[in-house]
């Protein structure tokens, strides 16, 4: 038997329980009928769980939060304490939000950096798809075939990249913001270019869909700028064609720092390129 397939069936798209957790002092959230709710965090350790729905994240211990590395997780946020708590967990990379994770705030959420890319509006669709509610653009769709554990592994690999020791202001070029936390290994990033008080601050980092490398021509760079570009290229295609696209896009020298590959899926090689325009 292919153990890998067996594992995917247990913790993957189909089947398995959606385990919910909420504070004993509140009514069970009415979110979707097939969530198995509990007030006991020990219930989250059961083997047949395929996704978590966490209603009161402030109550979970670090040990239990670590379980989210292996399962898609939906955070239900309906009070400022949980919002602040989740923001700290995310900022310190104690949890890493991936394309499979969502945040649902029935009353809306202020545009909090690091969380806003993961806000979903349809929790039922998220639960039915076990986290596969969002859609990545173009070639990056190959990332959809990955499990939560795969994303966790990429986040761990990405953490080995040495980034400049500086406050990062990042700008998204493309529609793949949900990949940002998995592949940008820096805590405490502030997103620019999406309104808010820091909208006009010059970015230190651009998180770009490589199909849009040409769009980098139109951006004014006033300081050296890191470029992080996730990619999915047909198996056998040379990754250096991506590098050439970035070199050609601008006149400033482009320094290729690292290329991480995360294996082959759906006929493509999945990975991420880390480079920098140096001014």
């Amino acid at each position, binding site marked *: 038997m292919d153990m890998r397939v067996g594992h995917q069936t247990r913790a993957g798209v189909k089947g398995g329980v959606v385990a919910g957790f909420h504070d004993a002092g509140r009514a069970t959230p009415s979110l979707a009928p097939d969530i198995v709710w509990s007030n006991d965090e020990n219930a989250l350790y059961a083997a047949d769980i395929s996704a978590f729905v966490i209603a009161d994240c402030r109550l979970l211990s670090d040990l239990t939060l670590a379980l989210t590395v292996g399962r898609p997780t939906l955070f239900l946020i309906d009070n400022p304490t949980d919002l602040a708590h989740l923001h700290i967990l995310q900022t310190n990379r104690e949890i890493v939000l991936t394309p499979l994770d969502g945040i649902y705030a029935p009353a809306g959420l202020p545009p909090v950096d690091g969380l806003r890319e993961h806000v979903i509006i349809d929790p039922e669709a998220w639960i039915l798809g076990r986290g596969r509610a969002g859609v990545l653009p173009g070639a990056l769709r190959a990332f959809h075939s990955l499990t939560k554990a795969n994303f966790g592994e990429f986040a761990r690999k990405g953490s080995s990249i040495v980034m*400049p020791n500086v*406050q990062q202001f990042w700008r998204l070029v493309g529609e793949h913001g949900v990949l940002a936390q998995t592949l940008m290994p820096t805590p405490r990033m502030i997103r620019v270019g999406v309104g808010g*008080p*820091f909208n006009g*601050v010059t970015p230190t980092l651009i998180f770009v869909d490589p199909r849009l490398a040409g769009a980098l021509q139109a951006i004014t760079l006033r*300081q*050296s700028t890191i470029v992080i570009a996730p990619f999915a290229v047909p198996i056998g295609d040379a990754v250096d064609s991506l590098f050439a696209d970035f070199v050609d896009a601008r006149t400033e020298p482009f*320094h290729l720092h690292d290329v991480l590959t995360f294996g082959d899926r759906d006929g493509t090689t999945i990975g991420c390129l880390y480079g920098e325009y140096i*001014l």
Partner: protein
Amino acid sequence: MISTCYVVANTLPPNFGWQMRARGLRAAQLVSQARAVFDEVRYLLFLERFHTLHRDRGFAILAPAQADTTMISLDAFEAFAERIEPATFVFTQNEFVEKAAIAAERHTVIYDILSLRELSLPLSGASEDEIRQFQVHHAKMLKIASRTMVNGDKARAFLGDKLKGKDVVVAPFSPPPMEVSPRPRTHLLFGGPLPRWADVTPIFRTMSAYLAQAPETPTIMLAPEGQTEDANALEYCALWLMANVTPMWNLSALNDAEILAMCFGYVEWAPLDEGRAHGMSLRTLQAVAAGVPVLHQVGTALDLLWDTFPGERLDAPITPADVARFVEKAKAGDYDEAVSAAQAVLNHHRGTPQPFEGLTR
């Protein structure tokens, strides 16, 4: 023979690509001042230091194509100093004292005392050995230097007898500000050093109390996050959790200038101690240079530089009422005149070649 001056850069000179907030600013200032006096002025960067800074920087540093930087390994310095025509070397602080001694055999050496480490060392938890070593190096530098630069009249008075009979010039720190486009001044800036051995919790509590009363004041807290075992960590986290506070740390030089341009006032959290009163506070200087008034509870080495302090200087712990008053006055433009005057003083000092005059024949 042309006259040449080498300014030893303790951190990367500004022409090395992307810079952190404070990289090489003293060297940049001295180079620009020396250019008015010498035929040729060069940065000198030790290769070993470059490697350390490179690691800290993470990604690439573009080694400069600029012709005004010499990089040399520490071991090669002696041969270098023997080979070149007699020149002037500026050493900021005394960490390269052995190299300064080698240079002094054939060249003119300037000892630039940027900050009074004899005050800050004990307060930062340095061991007795470190302090003793500093004193030995300090005395040696004073002995071999043909000229000593101090950062202001306050530092000169503090050093007193040690400078007797020396050629001493005052060269206040006035780093060149980075030009950015003007933007609305909407934020209050709160920041400073996060010393492990100094208790800055009172000012943190003050800011928490003030910001709880003033949720409409968006605030940027600029500091590295303290270690969780530090005394200040709890208060730091309390501020971090407030909805009107955005924490930031270690900004690039350009981002630092942009953030300063967004701020109407700067509250510095330096602790009330003697080291600070004679300290440098680059943040205060950069804020003033960027037109931002400052509230702090202890002076800096540059207090005597300005007739009117550009903001408020209290000699007692800052209270929430002090912050509220400062915010109100800053927003009303009450400090604008003093800030402009202080900027003009800094510009004057940056523009004068006086610290280097008389060194060329």
